[in-house]
C-alpha cells in the first residue's frame, strides 16, 4: 500500500509548534511521535513518510505541530476548538440515497490565505481523499469561497440532461457525462459513478453549481485564492464517521492557522439508515471514552508505572485520562477512529514514553526448535545432487506461457495457475513443470563453458479444486545436462545414482512426451512419477539451444 508522503516547510513547522528543529537527528526523533519518517530533507522542505493510515490528523504540518506540542508537554489533552453557530443550512435530497448519500459541512471564517496555508490545505484535502478516502470512494472534499455562494445549499442528484457547469480548469460548461469522458479528473474517477443515472451535485440557492462530488469542483465557486476570506467545506461519502473525521481534520488544520470554525445544519431526508439523524449540526467535535484495567496496561507494557505517570503519558498523547482504583478511563476525540480497543491507547502511551527509553528484556522459554520435515528433505536431496557434481540453480516460480507451453510444444488448452493483473507477460503464470525453466536457464548460458550440468529443487503448481487454496503445490527435482555428446545413458546414470542415494527403487518404462525425443520414458521412483529423456530437437530450437540436452524431472 502506498502511504501518504507529505511535504512541509521546516520553518513553518517550527513556528506552528514552537520547537526548534536544529538537526536532521532532532527531526527524526520528533517524527517518531507521529509515526513519521524522514523521506527527504531538501533545504527548508521536509518530506515525511506517514506510516499510520488511521491517523489522517497527522497528514498536514498543522497536525504534526499539534501532536509535537502535546508529546513535548507544551499542551496536553484534547484541544478545545471553539465552534460558533452559523445559520447556514444544507439540504440533502433522498434521490442520492443509493449513490452517495451522506454529506457534512462547515464554515471557516476570517482566514488569511498564505502560501503555506494554501499548499497544506490542498495537500491535506488530496491525501484525505486518496488514502483515507480510498481514492475518493469513501470520501471526497470540496472547499469553496463562501462569499460567492448563496445559502441554503443543496445536495441533490441530477440527470445528465438537467444540469451543466464549468468544471475547474475548464472554459465552457459541460454536462456530467462529458466531464467523465473529457476532463482529467473525470477520467480518473469516473468508475465511482459507473452505471448511475443521477449525478451528485452541490449547488446554492441561485442554482449555481459548486461541485459534482466526488469528481470535480466548479470553476466559479471552487477556486480558492489568496483573496478568499471565508471558506465553505463539504465532505461527501458513504460512512458518517469517515466523512465527519475528515471534516474535523480539515477544520482543525485551518483553525490552527487562525481560522474561526462555524457549524452548519445538515437536513437529511430521514433518520433511518444510512442517515445518522434527520437533522445534524456539523462539525460535531464530539468525544468518546474508553475504559480498561490498569492491570491490562501494566501487563502489556511490562513497565512499572505509577498512576501519576500513566496520567501524564496519556495526556501527552492527547487523552484526558482518569484513574479510579484499577480502572483507567480515557476520554479522546471522536476523530481518533484508530481507537478500537485498549491496546490502541496502550501503544500511544508507549510512544509518549519513548520506545528507546525502555530496557529490552530477553524471552525466557525452554524450547527445542526444528526445521520442517519438508525443508530438511529438500536439503537432503540437494546434498545428493551436489555430490554428483551438479550445479544448483534457482529460477522464479512466476514465468510465461511462452516458456511453459509454446516452446515446449504443449497444447494451448493446458491450464495454469494464472495471475489476472500481471505486470509483464514474462511473469503471468506459475510454473507447472520445472523442465522449461531449466531449458530457459541453459539458453542464457550458451557462451559459458560446457559441459553444463545443473539441477533445481523447487515448487510446481497446478489447479486442484480439492485443495483449500484451489492449488496443488508439489516439490520436484529436475536435472539437466548439456554438451555435445550427452545422451540417454548419461542422464539415466544420474537418476539411478539419485535413487540409490534416496534409498528408493527406480524404474523407467518407455513412453513418449511431446517435448522429448525417441529415447524417453516415464520414471517410477518409489511410487513417485516423473519423466526422463533427450529433449526433442524442435524444443531445443524453440529455446535457441544448439547442443543436445538430456533431462529428468521427478516429484519428491
Amino acid at each position, binding site marked *: *500500500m*502506498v502511504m501518504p508522503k507529505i511535504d512541509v516547510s521546516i520553518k513553518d513547522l517550527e513556528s506552528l509548534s514552537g520547537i526548534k528543529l536544529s538537526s536532521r537527528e532532532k527531526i527524526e526523533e520528533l517524527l*517518531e511521535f507521529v509515526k513519521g519518517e524522514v523521506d527527504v530533507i531538501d533545504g527548508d522542505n521536509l518530506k515525511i513518510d506517514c506510516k499510520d*493510515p488511521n491517523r489522517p490528523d497527522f497528514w498536514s504540518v498543522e497536525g504534526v505541530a499539534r501532536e509535537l506540542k502535546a508529546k513535548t508537554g507544551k499542551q496536553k489533552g484534547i484541544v478545545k476548538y471553539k465552534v460558533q453557530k452559523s445559520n447556514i443550512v444544507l439540504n440533502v435530497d433522498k434521490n442520492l440515497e443509493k449513490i452517495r448519500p451522506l454529506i457534512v459541512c462547515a464554515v471557516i471564517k476570517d482566514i488569511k490565505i498564505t502560501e503555506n496555508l494554501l499548499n497544506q490545505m490542498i495537500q491535506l484535502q488530496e491525501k484525505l481523499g486518496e488514502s483515507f478516502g*480510498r*481514492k475518493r*470512494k469513501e470520501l471526497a472534499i470540496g472547499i469553496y469561497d463562501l462569499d460567492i455562494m448563496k445559502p441554503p445549499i443543496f445536495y441533490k442528484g441530477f440527470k445528465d440532461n438537467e444540469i451543466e457547469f464549468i468544471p475547474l480548469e475548464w472554459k465552457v460548461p459541460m454536462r456530467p457525462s462529458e466531464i467523465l469522458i473529457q476532463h482529467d479528473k473525470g477520467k480518473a474517477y469516473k468508475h465511482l459513478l459507473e452505471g448511475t443515472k443521477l449525478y451528485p451535485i452541490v449547488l446554492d440557492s441561485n442554482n449555481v453549481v459548486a461541485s459534482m462530488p466526488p469528481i470535480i469542483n466548479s470553476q466559479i465557486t471552487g477556486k480558492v485564492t489568496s483573496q478568499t476570506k471565508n471558506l465553505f467545506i463539504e465532505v461527501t461519502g458513504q460512512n458518517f*464517521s469517515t466523512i465527519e473525521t475528515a471534516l474535523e481534520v480539515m477544520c482543525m488544520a485551518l483553525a490552527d492557522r487562525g481560522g474561526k470554525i462555524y457549524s452548519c445544519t445538515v437536513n437529511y431526508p430521514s433518520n433511518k439508515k444510512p442517515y445518522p439523524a434527520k437533522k445534524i449540526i456539523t462539525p460535531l467535535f464530539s468525544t468518546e471514552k474508553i475504559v480498561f484495567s490498569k492491570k491490562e496496561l501494566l*501487563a*502489556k*507494557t511490562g*513497565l512499572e508505572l505509577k498512576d501519576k505517570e500513566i496520567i501524564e503519558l496519556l495526556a501527552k498523547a492527547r487523552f484526558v485520562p482518569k484513574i479510579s482504583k484499577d480502572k483507567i478511563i480515557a476520554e479522546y476525540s471522536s476523530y481518533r477512529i484508530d481507537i*478500537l*480497543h*485498549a*491496546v490502541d491507547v*496502550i*501503544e500511544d502511551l*508507549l510512544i509518549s514514553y519513548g*520506545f*528507546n527509553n525502555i530496557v*529490552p*528484556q*530477553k*524471552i525466557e*522459554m525452554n*524450547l527445542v*526448535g*526444528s*526445521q*520442517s520435515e*519438508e525443508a530438511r528433505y529438500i536439503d537432503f536431496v540437494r546434498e545428493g545432487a551436489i555430490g*554428483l*557434481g551438479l*550445479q*544448483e*540453480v*534457482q*529460477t*522464479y*516460480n512466476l514465468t510465461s506461457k511462452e516458456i511453459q507451453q509454446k516452446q515446449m510444444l504443449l497444447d494451448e488448452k493446458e491450464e495454469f495457475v494464472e495471475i*489476472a*493483473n*500481471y*505486470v*509483464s507477460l514474462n*511473469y503471468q503464470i*506459475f510454473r507447472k513443470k520445472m523442465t522449461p525453466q531449466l531449458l*530457459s536457464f541453459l539458453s*542464457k548460458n550458451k557462451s559459458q563453458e560446457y559441459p553444463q550440468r545443473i539441477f533445481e529443487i523447487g*515448487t510446481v*503448481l497446478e*489447479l486442484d*479444486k480439492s485443495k*483449500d*487454496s*484451489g*492449488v496443488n*503445490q508439489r516439490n520436484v527435482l529436475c536435472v539437466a545436462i548439456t554438451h555435445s555428446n550427452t545422451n540417454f545413458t548419461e542422464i539415466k546414470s544420474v537418476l539411478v545414482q539419485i535413487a540409490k542415494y534416496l534409498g528408493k527403487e527406480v524404474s523407467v518404462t518407455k513412453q513418449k512426451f511431446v517435448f522429448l525425443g525417441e529415447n524417453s520414458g516415464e520414471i517410477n521412483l518409489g511410487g513417485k512419477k516423473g519423466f526422463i529423456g533427450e529433449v526433442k530437437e524442435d524444443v531445443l530450437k524453440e529455446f535457441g539451444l*544448439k547442443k543436445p540436452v538430456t533431462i529428468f524431472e521427478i516429484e519428491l
Partner: protein
Amino acid sequence: MLNRVKELSEIERKVLLVLSDELISFENCSKLSLLPIDSVRRASAWLSEKDFAIMKESTEEKFVLTDLGNKALLEGLPESIFLSALSKLGGRASFSDLQKASKLSSQEFTAALGINKRKAFIVIVNGVIEETGVANDQPNSCENILQNVVDGKEIEDGLLLDLQKRGLVEKKLVTSRLIKISKNGGVAQKILSTSDIERTFDVSAPVPEIFAGKKTPYVQFLQQIRHKLVALGFEEVSAPLVVTEFYNFDVLFQPQNHPARTWTDSYQLLKPRVGSLPNKKIVSAIKSAHENGGVSKSKGWGYEWSESIASRAVPAMHGTAHSARQLVKGVKSPHKYFAIARCFRPDVLDATHLIEFNQMEGFVVGDDLNFKHLLGMLKDFAIEFAGAEKVKFFPDYYPFTEPSVQLSAKHPEMGWIEFAGAGMFRPEMLENLGIKGQAIAWGVGIDRLAMFKLGIKDIRYLFSEDIGYLRKASGVFLK
C-alpha cells in the same frame, strides 16, 4: 637458469623443445609437440611470461569452417553417410531402405544422391542404387578437404569455392598467434635437450579451473538463517505459494476495503479465482472480529464482512499469511514459530526489486509476554543475524499488531539498516480464535542482508541465471 628450467611444467617443456627461431602457429606447434591446442596455448603464454618465448599476432584472411562445416567434419557429410550406409547394406539398396539406414532427412538424402551420382560414386539401375567403387580411389573426400582447411593446408581454389557454395566454409579475418623461441629460451632448450631434468613445481603458478557441484549462494544463506532460528528455539511452519485472502488479510484483521487489498497493490488470480474457507466456527469468529470486535472488547471495523472476498485465492503477499494459517490451525503455548516464505507483489523486476522474494516471519506465543520482550527479541535477532552493534526502535503500523515497532540495526559495515518489523498480535485476532495469552509477531527483511553477505549490488543475482556467476561464487558462511 637451471632452477628456472626445473620449474617448467610438462607441457611447457614439450612446447619449448619444438620451438625455433622461426615463427610458427599454435596449430603447428600442437602437431609438433603432440599436445592439444589448449595446452599449447597455455604453455605458450607461460613461456612468453617467463621470457623463454616470443609471441606475435598476425591477422590474415583465411578460409574457416562454418557451424555446418564443423558438424560435417565431426559426423561426416550427407554424401559420405550415404555411401557408408550403402556399403553396409552390401553395396546395393533400394531408395527407401537406404534412406532409412542412413537416417538422413529426405532433403539431405536427395542432395547426397545427386552429389554421389555426379561424382559417379553410384549408379541407379532399375530403381536400385549401386556403388561403383570409384569413391575408394578418391583420396580427396570432402571431409579430408575440410580437415585440410582446419589444418591450414594448401587447397585448390576450385575445391574451396565448391565448399563455400555449400556453406561449409567461409572467408573470415582470422587473428592467429605465432610463437618462436627467445634468447633465454634457447639456453633453456639446450639444457632440457642435453640432460634429463626432473620437474619442480612452481607452487605459486596458476592452475586450470575446475567446476564443482554447489548450492546457490542464496540457498546456502537461507539454510544457515534457518539453522540459526532453530537454535533460537523456533519451529518451522510450511509456506505455500497460494493462499486465500482469508489468511492473507482477514484473519490478520485487515478490513476488506483496506487499500492494500486493491488491484494495484496486490496480485489477483484469474485461475483459480477462489479457494475454500475453514470451518464455520472460525469463519464466523473472524467475521464478528471485523464487524463488531467479536468476543474481544474491540469496537471492530463496523462494516459488513463478506465471505466471498475472503475466499479469493491469491499468491501469498507476506509471510504473516502463514502465521495466520498456524493461528487458525491452533498453537502450542509457550511456543515459537517461523516460516521462510516466498512472497509475491506486483512490481517491475529491476536491480532493487524482485517480483518474488523471501520473507522470514514468525511469532512467539506465551502467557506473560509483554512489550519489553518484543524489544528484547528484536534486539537478539539484530545481534544474531546482522551482528548489530546498536539498535534503535521506531513506532510503526501494521493492521494486525498493536503496539507495532520497527527496528533499525547498526551493522558494522552496512551502517544503519531497517532490519525488522514486529508487534503484538491484536486481541481481535487472538481472542476470537480462542488463543490465550499474548503473541509477538515479527518479520525480518533478509534479502538486503543476503545481498550484503553475497557481495552483490543487484538483487537479481539472488536468483542468478548466469552459470558463470554461480560457478565462481564463494560459499556463504554466517558467523
